[in-house]
Each structure stands twice: as C-alpha cells, then as structure tokens.
C-alpha cells in the first residue's frame, strides 16, 4: 500500500530533456538541455557540435560566459529554448568538468537516445 508519488517535498519542476541535434525539431518552443562541443564562436552566435555530431547554432546571452575566447574546456551544457529554425537561444550555460579524461560525446549520445526512448520514464515527464 503505497502513498502516491510526488512526495519529494518540492513541487516537481519539469524535466529539461537532454537532446542531440536531430531531436531539436521535436522540441520547438521548449527548453532543452544540450551538451556538446564548441566548434566556433562569432560575436553572439556559437556553433555547437551536438552529441550526434550535428552542428547546432546557439544564440548567446549578452553576458554569456561562452562568448569569451578564453574557455576552460570546449565541452558545455546549454539550457536553451529551441526556435523554429532549429537554433537554440541560450538561457543558461555551464562548462563541463575539466579533469580526468576528455568528454566522450558518442557515449553520452547513447544515453541521450536511451533517455528519449527506452528509458524515458526515468528521464522525462
């Protein structure tokens, strides 16, 4: 006899799903978590190689830490809103940890796919 879920003591915030380049089209107008590798930055626009190797255009905030030429690492996690043209508007960004071994985007991509499909109940609303 179990009490109902949602007993974690906080109003549950919605998930911000982890996506790769191919999944962006399915999340237009929504917030997503996009992890990838910065390939180039030009003013307030950044090109990110997503975990499926697709290039994504990210429009940066005016005070974005990603706009600077100096970065601790090229691997970042960006929370952003997906626009109709498939670009992403940055809301928040963080550099991935810099120690240990280089970030393996391909393996991370496997997790993204599992999170979207077979194990969605563990990852998404």
């Amino acid at each position, binding site marked *: *006899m*179990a*009490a*109902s*879920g*949602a*007993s*974690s*003591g*906080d109003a*549950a*915030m*919605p*998930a*911000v*799903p*982890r996506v790769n380049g191919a999944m962006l089209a399915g999340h237009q107008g929504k917030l997503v*978590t996009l992890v990838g590798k910065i390939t180039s930055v030009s003013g307030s626009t950044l090109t990110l190689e997503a975990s499926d190797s697709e290039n994504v255009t990210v429009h940066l905030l005016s005070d974005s830490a990603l706009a600077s030429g100096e970065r601790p*690492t090229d*691997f970042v*996690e960006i929370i952003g809103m997906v626009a109709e043209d498939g670009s992403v508007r940055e809301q928040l960004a*963080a*550099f*991935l*940890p*810099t*120690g*240990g*071994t*280089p*970030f*393996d985007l*391909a*393996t*991370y991509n*496997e*997790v993204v796919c*599992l*999170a979207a499909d*077979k*194990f*969605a*109940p*563990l*990852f*998404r*609303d």
Partner: protein
Amino acid sequence: MGMSQGMGATPTKQGGYDELTLTPATIRQYQTATISDVEGRVLLDGTELKDIKLVGRVVEADPSDSALSLQIEDGTGRVRIKYWYPQAADGTTDGARKADMDAAVTEGTFVSVSAAVKTSNGRMILNGSTIKPLADPNEITLHFVEAIHVHVDRTRRIPYSKGGSNPEGAGAGAGAGAGAAAVTGFGMGSMQASSSGFGMGSGASSFGAGLDVKPVLGGGGAAGSSSGSGVGGGGGMSEFDLHEHLKTILAKCTDDQGMAIGDLARQVQSRGVTEETVRKAIEDLSMTGAVYSTTDDEHVKSTEAE
C-alpha cells in the same frame, strides 16, 4: 575535494552485495519513488531507497553557518539537498572544511551527491552525506548508465509463471491467472554496461573504449508502465516447460561451440515463444548452471551435453 562522511555502497550484514545501499538514480526517479505506508519506507523499483546517489549541476548554493542548502538539476528534474558541514572537536562547524566546500560547490558546478533519503510528514527529504565536484566530465554519462543498469536489474525480477509477487512498480501481467498461459512476450532484456578498464583519472584507458552500452529491451519496456502491453501475448509455454525443452534440445547438441541462441529460438518459434523469451530463459538457465556460453554470448552449450 570529497567531503565524505563515510557513505558508500556497502555489503549487507548477510554478507552479500545483492542490496546496494547506495542507489544511483535520476532526480526524476527520486520524484517517482513512493512512501510505503507500512513503515514509512521509501520505495523505488520495488527496493527500499535508503541512500541515493545523484549527479547534477548546482542551480543554487545557499550556505549558512551550519549547513549548505543546495538545489541541483540533472535534466530530469530539480531537487533540494541539505548538507550539514562536518564539525570540529568542540561541536561547532569546522570552518576550514566549510570554506573549502563553499568555494568548491557553487552555481554551475557539476557535483556528485550521496544523500540519505528520509521522510518527514509524509514527504521525502534528502540529507546530503557526500558532496563532491565531478573530477571527470564522463562521470555524468556514467552515472546515468548506472542508474539505468540498477533500474533494469531491480525490475527484471519478474516471475512469468506461478503468480509470484511482483516487485512494486514492475510491469503487470506476471503470474497470469490460471497459470496456463505464461507471459511469453515479456522479455525485460538486459542492459550490459561493462566498464572494465574504466579508470577515472587513472589515465590507463580511455572512457570510450571501456564502456560498452548495449541495451536490449523487449516486450513491455521500462518498468513503471503497468499497461501490460506486450505482456501475455500469444499462448504458449509455462516457464517450467520452456526451460526443460531448451535443455533437452541443447543436451542433444554435441557441437563444441554449442548452439546459437537465434537457432534455438527458431526451433521453439512454432510453439509461439518469442526470441526475447528464449533469451531470458537461456539467461536463467546459465544462472543455474545448466548451460554456459562458448565462443561468444550468442552460443550456448548444455552442461549435460557431451
């Protein structure tokens, strides 16, 4: 910078490692855990959730004199954790360790958190015991893989005949009524995450080479969906008959490398048994020592064959 208070995965008093005391999970899984009325225990995937391991990005870090209140997010949700700083000998907060923690754990930092799961007034709260900035970005990926692995492992214990009790949250349909029809389509499958050579920071081998993620999921899909889709389909063999039948076929096979599981599946296909069910049965048989793998995972041989 591990501010640990001695928490970790430890064997149970019975001496086995069957019950991890530290469960890797996503925040969403934590939010779907239930409080069992019986003793106020928290349950996830049919197992008591005592200590949880989460990995996420710090959204808010709010230090006070005695404790650090954190909010972390992992893409699946957001959660609060309260971490009491270690104390000095005189019972006050250890200032140096607090300073280290406050400097290391700030907004935007990726951390690994282990926390005790408690209940208070019917709600769950997390008391942090270890909070550690990640030493390697691949820990993010590894954590999710571990969460999936433990989830599959805990939800796979489903008898598909004899009407045994189901772990909470597992797919419905097991033990169907009269016992005649088994749950043939319900193959939970297995997730193999072998992380041999995964030396975080050891430098010896690269993460990519070490981690091999092969999810194989058939039938009803992830636990938690009790719709029973894909469960109890097509008539068929009870568990007892299928195992014996497979053993009989294999016992007659004198080939050194045994038989391919695919071939075995084809042989029982006419009886309405799906390949997923055969694979599950083979797994069961290899756990009891009746069959074993030969040249590769796909080939098995009976221990009774010549």
